[in-house]
């Protein structure tokens, strides 16, 4: 009954979350969830100090989309921005939504 999907979690400086959400949708995601986040990373160097710290974007997508999202992060986000991402396996009931 349950279908396999990938959960992609991306933590990025809050100023970039609008751009990131747009990019993720452009890669084929059908939706996402954004929450505020705070913590520490190896760079620890952000412009977001005054403007809300970090944001965490989560999206559940098919494996092919997850791969494309990660490729996009590798080329456009990781080199310059405080950005962290990971992928895990999840199962969903209504697979047409993800």
């Amino acid at each position: 009954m349950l279908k396999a999907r990938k959960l992609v979690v991306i933590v990025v400086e809050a100023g970039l979350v609008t751009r990131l959400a747009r990019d993720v949708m452009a890669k084929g995601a059908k939706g996402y969830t954004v929450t505020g986040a705070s913590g520490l990373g190896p760079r620890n160097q952000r412009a977001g100090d005054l403007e809300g710290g970090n944001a965490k974007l989560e999206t559940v997508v098919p494996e092919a989309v997850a791969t494309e999202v990660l490729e996009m992060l590798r080329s456009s986000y990781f080199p310059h921005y405080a950005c962290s991402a990971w992928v895990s396996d999840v199962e969903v009931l209504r697979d047409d939504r993800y």
Partner: protein
Amino acid sequence: MDILSVAVQNLTSAPVLAFGVGLLATAIRSDLRLPEPIYQAISIYLLLGIGIKGGVALSEVSIQEVGMPILGTLLLGVTIPALAFFLLKGIRKLSQVDRGALAAHYGSTSLVTFTAAIIFYESVSVSVEGYLTTLLAILEIPGIIVGLLLATRGMKRNVPWNESLREILAGRSIFLLAGGLAIGFLTGNTGFARIDEFFVALFPGILTLFLLELGIVAGRRLSDLKTSGFGLVIFGIAFPLISGSLGVLTGQLTGLGIGGSATLGVLSASASYIAAPAAVRLALPEASPGIYLTASLGITFPFNLTLGIPIMLQISIYLESVGL
């Protein structure tokens, strides 16, 4: 009114002392922070309040009176970032992109420094033309654009101009300042009398609260000074003196009074740390926030708040006395 007593009076004013307490809180690793929504609310209050007051003042002057100062301010907005970009060549380890990012910050301006200057000048009975807020709004934008242009000159890369300009224009700094100016202009003195308890009497107290938070944030930047290098510290202190003097001079030449010229000096000397970082981060990802935020927020902001504000007043008094 000698320079020393003015400086002491500024250093012992409540907003500046609150900034010091904020720095201290970071130094002793206190977990004190203003809650994020309150920080946002206060910054909206300050922007709107400053805008409305400026708009009321603007409704009472003629185009002729503000025309020259506006023209002078536009000129400053283009000259200062170009000058910063050029002078920063003196710091060898800075890349072109980092120099452009710094130019964008120093070309733009800081609302809090401006507000602290106005409140301080009023406290020592120096009057400031109310329409200076219009100049604040005007000076915020061109510096960022010139800085971004200089940073990306000769680069084979698409600058996301749409996104960055949107960030500047639709960001709350410019939007609320412009909105406030419109409200004040339309409602005039009569309408303002109904809300001035909230926007005038409470204003210095709320600014004090805001500066406490800024002290904490700036304090966190201070630890970056070790890695940023001595050249950046020199720049962060010397450049505001140069750009500030240019601003005071422009004020005097375009017909502003002592207080107005000093305030235009403070505007020119101050560096942005809210609007510019957001725009620069989107447009120039290679530029290091460790450099531009440290310089504008960690060095120049405290310098202007403590010494820059009284120094600009003295320069203005001097220029007035030699008959400019």
